[in-house]
Every structure is written in structure tokens, then in C-alpha cells.
């Protein structure tokens, strides 16, 4: 009798404690949870709804169905912005990663001062996305900027590189490549993970440095390369500050990045509904590309813990 009474009692106790544990758990993540719901999920759902309306910021939205999405693909400037953004990502991301890897390998040799220099090279990526650097960059490459004057003294070109439709995008690509610091640090960490025995064994077998690079370093680094590739690609698609501040999308729309056009549509032309549709299309583009990376990763990313492919 006493036994049967005790058991349910202890059970209720236990489940009470379970409940209060859950509550405590939810409460402790609540700052993040509330933040997520209010600042991310809410606005996202709102923009999904707005993308099906003609919302213009000043009057209430009315439903237009898929019209915004349909119009996108006959909008010459939208297509131009896609072209610019894809060119930018496909040129800048590989170059940036190659640069980052090359320097990471240099600093990994453990020569004197290498940690100092790796810190120095990291600085651009901390400050590189900032407004101040964009303004400095604009000055340097502007009509009377230092770079422009040096180039003209060296008789290379007289042109104002950011005012010239043929070169403006290249200047922005250069600026972004210059911010190779964060992938470099990650590469550096990755390089230090590679067991030195592998290189020792390879040297004993007489493998050249190039051979070691392609057969040891690169395969062992693939998880890190994969990570950097995904992050940098996503970042590349969302590039805004540099283009908005330095070229404003011009000249002749040659640097009309996706995010710049989106901003212009939303806040200058007040086509919030249309801009929301653009935002969702960008989300889909990034999702698809990331998915492709993940799906192909099993063919080229090598995880040590799995004992090879």
C-alpha cells in the first residue's frame, strides 16, 4: 500500500522537475529566442508576405500575387545586377581564397615575425567592410586619388578607375580580395592541424614540395577550404557597403550589385514589395548554391575521422 502510494508520488515529483527544467531551459535561452522571433523570424515572414504585395512604405499593401516575381525576370536592371554579382563572386572568391592560402602557408613556416605579420594581414578584414575604408578607397582611386596619380605618372593609365565603366568592378574586386584575413586565419589553423609525420614520411620517400602540397596539404585542408568557400560565397552575394559607398552601383550600372539594387528599389523608389521579392530570390539563389556545395562535398572533401573517402 505504502509502496504503491510512493511510486506515483515520486513520478509526479520527477515530472514536475522535468517541467521546471524545461522552463529553466527555455528561460535561459529566452533572450536569444525573443531576439530571433522579433528581429529575424518576424521580419522574414513579413517580407515573405510583402513580396506578394505592392507595398510602397507610405500606404498599406495590397495583394498582387506572383506579379513581383514575374516582373523580376523581365527587368533588365535586375538581370544586370545578377550578372554583376555572379561575376563578382566567381572572380573574387577563388582569388581571395588562393591569396589567403598562400599567405597562410607562408606564415605557417614559423619564420621569425610570422605571427606579427599574420596579425597585420588580418587587419584589413576587420576594418575592410567599414564605411571609413570604403571612403578611403574611393579617395585613393578617385579622379585625383593617389593610386590614380601614380598610375598616370607611370604612364599606365590616365583614367579614373572607379569612374570608368570598364574598370570599376575590378577595383571593388581588388578591395574585397584585400580583405583575405579571416579565411587566412582559418587556413592557418587548418594547416597546423596537419600531422607533421605525414610530411616527414613523404620527404623520406623523396616527394617534392609540390607533390607534398598537392597530395598532403590540399587533401588534408579540404574541410577548411569547404568551410571558407561556403562562407565567402554567401558573403560575396550579400556585398553591399563597398559598392554602395564607392560607386553607388555606377558607372553605367557596371557595379550594380544585387544588394545595391535591392536597397535602391526599396528605399529610393519605395517599391518594398518588389524589393522583398528580390530578397527572397537572393535567399533561394544562395540556398541553391550552398546546397550544391554540400552535395558535391562528398566527392572532394576529405575528413580524417572517416579514415579517408
Amino acid at each position, binding site marked *: 500500500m505504502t509502496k504503491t502510494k510512493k511510486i506515483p508520488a515520486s513520478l509526479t515529483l520527477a515530472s514536475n522537475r522535468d517541467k521546471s527544467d524545461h522552463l529553466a531551459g527555455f528561460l535561459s535561452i529566452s*533572450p536569444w529566442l525573443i531576439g530571433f522571433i522579433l528581429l529575424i523570424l518576424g521580419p522574414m515572414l513579413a517580407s515573405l508576405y510583402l513580396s506578394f504585395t505592392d507595398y510602397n512604405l507610405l500606404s498599406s499593401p495590397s495583394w498582387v500575387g506572383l506579379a513581383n516575381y514575374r516582373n523580376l525576370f523581365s527587368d533588365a536592371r535586375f538581370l544586370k545586377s545578377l550578372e554583376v554579382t555572379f561575376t563578382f563572386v566567381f572572380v573574387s572568391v577563388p582569388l581571395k581564397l588562393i591569396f589567403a592560402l598562400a599567405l597562410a602557408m607562408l606564415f605557417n613556416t614559423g619564420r621569425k615575425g610570422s605571427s606579427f605579420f599574420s596579425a597585420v594581414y588580418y587587419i584589413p578584414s576587420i576594418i575592410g567592410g567599414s564605411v571609413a575604408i570604403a571612403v578611403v578607397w574611393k579617395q585613393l582611386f578617385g579622379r585625383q586619388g593617389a593610386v590614380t596619380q601614380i598610375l598616370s605618372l607611370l604612364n599606365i593609365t590616365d583614367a579614373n578607375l572607379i*569612374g570608368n565603366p570598364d574598370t570599376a568592378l575590378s577595383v571593388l574586386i581588388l578591395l574585397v580580395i584585400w580583405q583575405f584575413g579571416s579565411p587566412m586565419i582559418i587556413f592557418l589553423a587548418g594547416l597546423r592541424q596537419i600531422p607533421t609525420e605525414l610530411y616527414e614520411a613523404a620527404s623520406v620517400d623523396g616527394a617534392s614540395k609540390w607533390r607534398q602540397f598537392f597530395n598532403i596539404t590540399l587533401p588534408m585542408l579540404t574541410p577548411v577550404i569547404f568551410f571558407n568557400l561556403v562562407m565567402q560565397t554567401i558573403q560575396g552575394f550579400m556585398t553591399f557597403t563597398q559598392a554602395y559607398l564607392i560607386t553607388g552601383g555606377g558607372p553605367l550600372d557596371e557595379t550594380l550589385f544585387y544588394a545595391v539594387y535591392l536597397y535602391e528599389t526599396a528605399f529610393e523608389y*519605395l517599391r518594398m514589395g518588389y524589393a522583398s521579392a528580390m530578397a527572397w530570390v537572393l535567399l533561394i539563389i544562395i540556398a541553391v548554391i550552398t546546397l550544391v556545395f554540400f552535395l558535391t562535398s562528398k566527392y572532394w572533401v576529405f575528413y580524417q575521422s572517416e579514415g579517408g573517402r
Partner: protein
Amino acid sequence: MKKYLWYVLLLVLFLLVACNGAEQDDTTNAEGDRDQEDNSETTIRVAWWGNQERHDMTLEAIELFESTYPDISVQPEYTGWDGYWERLNTQAAGSNLPDVIAMDNSYLNEYNSNDLLVDLAPLIDEGTINLDDVDDVYQEINHDGDRVLAVASGANALALVYNVEMLEEHGFDLEPGFSYDDLFEMNLTIKDALETEGQEYFGYDFANAEYELLNNYVRQHGMSFYNTEGNGLGFEEAVLVDYFEWVQEMVVDGAAPSHDIMMSYIEGGNSMVQEGSSAMQTAASNQIIGISQGTEYELDLAVLPAWDGVHANYIRPSMSFSITAHSAQQEAAAKFIDFMTNDLEANEVLQAERGVPISSAVREHLSDKVSEPVQKTFDYLEVVADYTTDADPLSPPGETEVRGAFSRIVESLKYDQLTPEEAANQFVQQAENVLN
């Protein structure tokens, strides 16, 4: 365990309160106003755009206002032109517009059609805003039928700002009546002369106002930029082709600087006329005040070129003030507008920098107190009055986007990537797309 829970709860409560508090600060100023009303003080928010000089003068005038009306305090919100409308648009979306906003003609219709502006007619009729000394011509453009949407804080007209000595030196003058082709010839002549001396000369500075100049050009043809219904353009494509031919010729033949040079001056806040690498530029007449600062050259204002002998200028109100529909303090807001329009002391501080004051009493009071460039804007408005035709109706909502399309097409035109015919055709199509 229990203690820990309490901490978490407290933290959450704190966060919620913090969020809530912040929200109130941002979005419900009206409530704050009501609180303050109990202490018999009203707060109004006033927004305008401009440069540092204008900000300083306006803040000083606001101090005068506050000492005249001790029960009203003004919370200023000022920025440069860039970002001003983006800021207002987002505030409009949040039903949180300031009580008084500086209004530009190009946005008046957009804001009016979205019911964001208060009709000022009753406030004017009852005398809270006193416009007794104001000629109708200054306020015409701010009417929508019987409704009054804004009160101009100054008047100006599109003009050429030119370097007096430089033109004299090369034997030119800009007496009203010169043509577009004359501008072309003058600038090429000056350029040749100066470049043989080794001086840099860019030619006619469009100052990114090709759109405004076209507006004048189509008016000279007896047409208007937008049709009366506001759902399409009001001029013929052939007129635009002519205009584009002239613009392209100017740039390609070197009588005007290339687009990137022009833009780099504008973005840097510099002016070619100021530094002497151009003899003339398009500008609103009040801009001569800013350009005159930091230059040793003597500058003056000239009437825009005539087309086939025809002039079609118009005097336009600039930097008008409107009261927004979100304002809970319309009475106080109206007093502010009245003060800025009529108070002599305040206008002494403001130095007619927004344009020639619309009140004749203020104009008279200021006439012997203003600096030379300001005096020139006064004189110019009298001169240009002989060369005006009726003002056009307000530009339709969507003008910003039409102007955006126009700038891009002019850019291509100046880079010689489009023929005038192609450019005109593209612009007409894109503009009709936006306006329909």
C-alpha cells in the same frame, strides 16, 4: 535552483521592459508630448536637410523661436540631402513622421497622395500661419485644389552661376537671350584659350541637373515634363532627341566635362566654378550663396539659355515646410512655420539661404542686411520674373524613379554608348512604365 530561476526571470523581465521602453522612445513621441503638456510644454519635432551652414543657422533660429514661445520646445532632426528621404520614408511607414518637415517639390505629390500631409488652409485662414505679406506666385505650386500642402521658406529659380571676369576676359556676356549653341561655342572658345595657357578647363558644368534643364527645355517648346493627369510624359520624343543631341555634343566635343569628372566634383562637395576650371554651371539661384564661399572669383547669376528666343523659367518655392498627418501638435507646428516665414529676427539669422524669403516685409527688412551673393539672388528673382511662364503642376508620384532612369540614360549618352535617338526612346519607354 529556484534562486537561479528567479535571476533568469528577472533578466527576461528586464529585457522586455527595456525593449518596450526603447520602442516608446522611438515611436510614440505623441505620448511623450501629452505628458509634457501637463507641464504646459509642447514638444514638436522639425526635420530638414542641408549642409552644416544651414543646420547652424536653423538651430539658431529655433532658439529664437523657443524664447518667443517658451511653452513650445523644438526637437530638431537634420541630415544632408542624401538619406533625408530614406529616413522620412521609413518614419512615414512607422507612423512616426516629425511634426514639421522640410518638403521638396518632387515629393509633395507622393506624400500628399498617401495622405501624409495636413491641409494648412484652415490654419492660414484663422491666421495661425500669417501669409498676408506673401504674393500668390510664391505659394501657387503648394496648392492641391483648395488644399494648401506646404509653405515655402524661400523662392528660387533655376539659373546659371557664372564667373564674371572669366567671361569678360574672353569677350562674352550672358545677357538673357543667348542660345544653347552659344553655350557650346563659348565654352569651346574659353577652353581653347585657357588650354593654350596650360590651364585646366572642363567646360560647362551640368552639375547633375540635366533633368532640371530638360524640364526648362520642354517648357520652352510649350510642353511640360509630365502630362496633366500625371500618368505619362507631357512632351514629344523628338524634343528629347534634340536635347540629347545637344548634351552629347557638349560632352563629346569637350564643351562640358565627362560624367565621371562631373560626379567626382559633386561627390567631393566641390565645384568647378569655385576653383576656376569651369566658367559656368547650372544651379538653383540660392546655390550661388554656397558656391561663392571659398572662391576669390566674382560670381553672378544668369537666366537659362533661350530656345529659339523663347524663355520659360518659373519661380519655384524651395525647402517648403509641411505639417504631417502624424503630428499631434498641429497648432504648435503651425506657429513654427509662421515664425520661420514672418519673424524678422529669425530671417536675419537664416540669411535667405533657403531662397528669397516669400514675405515682402521680410525681404524689405533684409535688403540692406544681407551679403553680396544673397543680394544677387534677390536681384535675380526680379530679373527672371520677366522671363517666366506658368509653373507646371506638381510632378506625379514616381518622379524619383523616372529621374533615376533619366540619370542612367544621360550617363550612357555622355559616355557615347547610346545615340540620342536610342536614349530618347529608352527613356520614354522606361518613364511610361513607371508612371502607368
